[in-house]
């Protein structure tokens, strides 16, 4: 399947596109669906429209997956950086914070804010992706 990114919300006649009522046979989207209004009066418009609807759905799924992977990999990189930092920066492993060794503080407390921040960023952006999908698909 070719990869299509939908960026302009106004190319498709907003109110007429309903998402998700695709019949199994009309599942394959194609870029022709983006030409939109062409099929508005045709009797087979349901199939055409669901092609467009499916295009939006696939675009939403792709952007949510990409978002999940970016946040997940970013978090793992930071997690990986913690032991590397301790190994590479001289003296860091021996330093203390409030009487506790630095690596204990880092692993025992320092990672949690990173987890929380990643999660918060994800929730915000995922909701934004969905709002954009709603705009595109014309569902208010």
């Amino acid at each position: 399947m070719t990869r299509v990114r939908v960026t302009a919300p106004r190319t498709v006649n907003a109110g007429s596109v309903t998402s998700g009522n695709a019949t199994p046979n009309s599942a394959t989207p194609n870029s022709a669906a983006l030409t939109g209004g062409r099929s508005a009066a045709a009797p087979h418009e349901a199939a055409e429209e669901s092609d467009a609807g499916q295009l939006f759905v696939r675009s939403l799924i792709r952007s949510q997956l990409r978002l999940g992977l970016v946040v997940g990999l970013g978090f793992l990189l930071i997690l990986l950086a913690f032991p590397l930092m301790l190994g590479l920066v001289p003296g860091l492993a021996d330093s203390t914070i409030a009487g506790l060794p630095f690596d204990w503080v880092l692993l025992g407390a320092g990672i949690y804010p990173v987890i929380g921040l990643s999660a918060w960023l994800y929730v915000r952006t995922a909701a934004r992706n969905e709002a954009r999908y709603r705009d595109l698909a014309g569902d208010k």
Partner: protein
Amino acid sequence: MNPVVGVAAFAAVSLATAVIGFYGLRISRTTGDFYVASRTVKPWWNASAIGGEYLSAASFLGVAGLILLSGTDALWYPVGYTAGYLMLLLFVAAPLRRSGAYTIPDFTEARLDSRAVRRVTSLVVVLVGWLYIVPQLHGAALAIRITTGLPAWVGPVAVVGVVCITVVAGGMRSITFVQAFQYWLKLTALAVPIVFLLFVLGGGESAVAAPAANPTALAPAGPYQIISLLVALLFGTLGLPHVLVRFYTNPDGQSARRTTLIVLGLLSVFYLFPTAYGILGRMFAPDLAQSGQSDALVLLLPGRMIGGMAGDLLTALVVAGAFAAFLSTTSGLVVSLAGVISQDVFGGSVRGFRLAALVSAIVPLGIASMTESLALAGSVGLVFAFTASTICPVLLLGIWWRGLTDAGAIAGMATGGVLCGSAMVAGSVLGAAQTPSWLAQPAAWTVPAAFAVTILVSRATRGRVPRTLTRLMTRLHTPERPLATER
């Protein structure tokens, strides 16, 4: 220690659990109530309940004990337990809620349009649940033995008894309230004694061992073990049956995400405390590690450092928290297992649910009475590895990859289950000292193997991709409101 303290604490927690459970009884009347609390639980309640259910014996007792034993290596456990929820949020929470299924087998059946997949998934879910309940019961046995001097079997039997009564009486609705209450109880039970301990310590800086000093001759974990552990914890969390069933009680996908965000905050706050116990244990009670009682550290530390009446009261609080941990995780697992068993075996009625609840609680009681307690955090870690190798690939690929087929799913679950299961059996036969690290922490190779088999078999059988796929993928990933007008 005064044995009355332990008994009184357990009785109080059981009574509170039962009272809240029966309070919930009045509002659970339909089958839907019983399974998923009619999906009307508020995010804060739900998040507290998820936290309450997730923080098991391994978190309450095991993490501190493991930190006492192996120091910074053990700090990866709470990090992994928490980060597992991040993975759940990123890849599972909202789509799973939107799938509209009650249990994991419901989800796989709907996604792959196959009864065979449903049966295999049910089998794996029940297996995971039983494996996960066993360490809870081991924890109960340990707590009863240490704090009351009663025979160890009293603990598991009491826990299973209370769980059966609550679940059979109230179903999921009352469980949600019970779990939420138990999260806050667990947090208080760890936090209050720590505040007292730090206050006492603030008085006199005596010469003590540094937390970095190793009380035993254990070798530090290598990079392989840490990576494998993280794979198990990160990918195991999103397949745990009692965690997943919680997401169905959210009204929609967005609130499922918000709930998970709150859960992450609750877990992050909670895990500071077992870590603090572990550090204090290293400084003031290293002898527990040498005598093989490290899992009892949380229970014994307050009484040791603060004598007399105050010490007894703090001990009672900690014991109450420990039993809250055993009860909440066990009841959460029993509810989700009962949901699976009753739908597959008893036809999904309320009576069938009650019968299934009894079955799902009594079998692990039998297993627990025949097996020995390992380090709690370690044995729970193995269950995470098993889940990550079986349910996780099917769930992740089912949600995000259109190419998954029923044959691929079954082959993947079988591969992961057999590989990880054999590693667990081999490890327990060889004993902790003789097990090589690739067998002791199998996730780093069993999880990729399960993913690879699932993908390859799905590719080879691509004609079997279900016809309902397009509609289902749309439903999983699009926000709810458009769908309300659709059908």
